[in-house]
């Protein structure tokens, strides 16, 4: 195989296997005709990568209308699940940042921030139940899939997620052991000049990253599995309805978190810095800003997923499918 032909085939990796099977040879021939003896430009590589990814999106029902409505609804629901995984990471960060707010609350906290905080907690519980319900109603189809010999198709993804979870939980155990050697103030990030506190901070961030990777891999395994399940029309409709509810919950939680931040920043800014009550403190908190950005991104993704579900044209049925 010539170098140019090999480059044409190399760019094909962005496209889904089915598309490559049908159009791969002629696409590579067009690349050769277009390029002659020149190497592909960066622009050509980029546009080919983007069109290849778009083709993958079309094949999975994430964009376009190439697949049947029921598959578009399923893809929309799975986008909401991916958004939920990202939201869980952001929510964990928010829970850590607002630690102690729900129990005692900083002195002088305005009722608006308390209300917003309670709203985040209540909606989070509802959203967890919705996601759990979405998983529960897919269990019979999952068991049928396993009985039908589906395990080899998902084994690689599940094993990868299990290994990542094992590493994450081990790191968490080390972190807990390390935390017991520190005082409460040190664990909260004060006295950072102390070497033990610095090690704890690094270990904390590394552990959170490992757990986030494990969550990401479980989500990937869930998506790969869900795409292969033989779901009835009723189950797809129910999943779509639950996905739309979860998406709405994410938007609500993002809005409530923004309100909490704004009202806490104006009434008790020291709380955002972990400083003693009444101390001077900036309302700006980098971790909270990053958390908000992640929440917002997850909400937008969930909103897009929910809109795919709504535009798929499926009806939300409750009868047998």
């Amino acid at each position, binding site marked *: 195989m010539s170098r140019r032909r090999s480059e044409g085939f190399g760019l094909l990796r962005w496209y889904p296997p089915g*598309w490559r099977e049908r*159009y791969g*040879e*002629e*696409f*590579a*021939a*067009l*690349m050769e*005709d*277009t390029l002659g003896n020149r190497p592909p430009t960066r622009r*050509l590589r980029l*546009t*080919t990568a*983007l*069109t*290849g990814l*778009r*083709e993958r999106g079309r094949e999975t029902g994430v964009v376009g209308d*190439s697949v049947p409505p029921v598959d578009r609804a399923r893809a929309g629901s799975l986008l909401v699940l991916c958004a939920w995984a990202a939201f869980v990471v952001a929510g964990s960060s928010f829970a850590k940042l607002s630690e102690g707010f729900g129990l005692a609350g900083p002195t002088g906290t305005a009722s608006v921030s308390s209300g917003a905080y309670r709203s985040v907690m209540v909606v989070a519980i509802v959203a967890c139940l919705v996601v759990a319900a979405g998983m529960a109603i897919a269990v019979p189809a999952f068991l049928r899939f396993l009985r039908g010999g589906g395990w080899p198709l998902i084994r690689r993804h599940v094993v990868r997620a299990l290994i990542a979870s094992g590493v994450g939980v081990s790191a968490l155990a080390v972190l807990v052991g390390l935390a017991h050697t520190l005082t409460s103030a040190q664990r909260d990030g004060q006295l950072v000049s102390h070497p033990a506190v610095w090690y704890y901070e690094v270990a904390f961030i590394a552990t959170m990253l490992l757990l986030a990777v494990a969550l990401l891999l479980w989500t990937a395994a869930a998506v790969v599995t869900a795409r292969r399940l033989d779901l009835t029309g009723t189950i797809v409709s129910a999943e779509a309805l639950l996905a739309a509810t979860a998406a709405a919950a994410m938007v609500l939680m993002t809005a409530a978190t923004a309100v909490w931040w704004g009202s806490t920043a104006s009434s008790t800014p020291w709380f955002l810095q972990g400083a003693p009550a009444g101390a001077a403190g900036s309302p700006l908190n980098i971790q909270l800003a990053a958390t908000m950005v992640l929440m917002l991104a997850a909400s937008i993704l969930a909103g897009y997923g929910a809109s795919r579900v709504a535009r798929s044209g499926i009806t939300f049925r409750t009868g047998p499918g």
Partner: protein
Amino acid sequence: MTRNRQPTGLRRSNDPPVLILTSLAAGPKHGHALAKDIEDFAGVTLGPGALYGAITRLEERGLIAPLETDDRRRPYRMTATGSAALAEVVDDMRRIADIGASRLGLIPGALA
């Protein structure tokens, strides 16, 4: 501005699907010949990704069909459905062009 999209997915005159159908109206062509022809008559350079994205959509909608060949460079032809869809979109574009030309006074004696 909202506008009813046709079920064929064809829209503006510089849409890759419209350009491909216009090129195939002159006879079957493979990918590279299509790209060259489109560049010649429309001045639009379609990269391989955009070209094959549009070919995929057009084939899905039954507006074009591949021809049998042993060559890697597979030619495509326009189907009867594709011909009808192109006629419709060309008629639509001509109507708008006529109104625009008339309002600009480019057609002597014509009133919009």
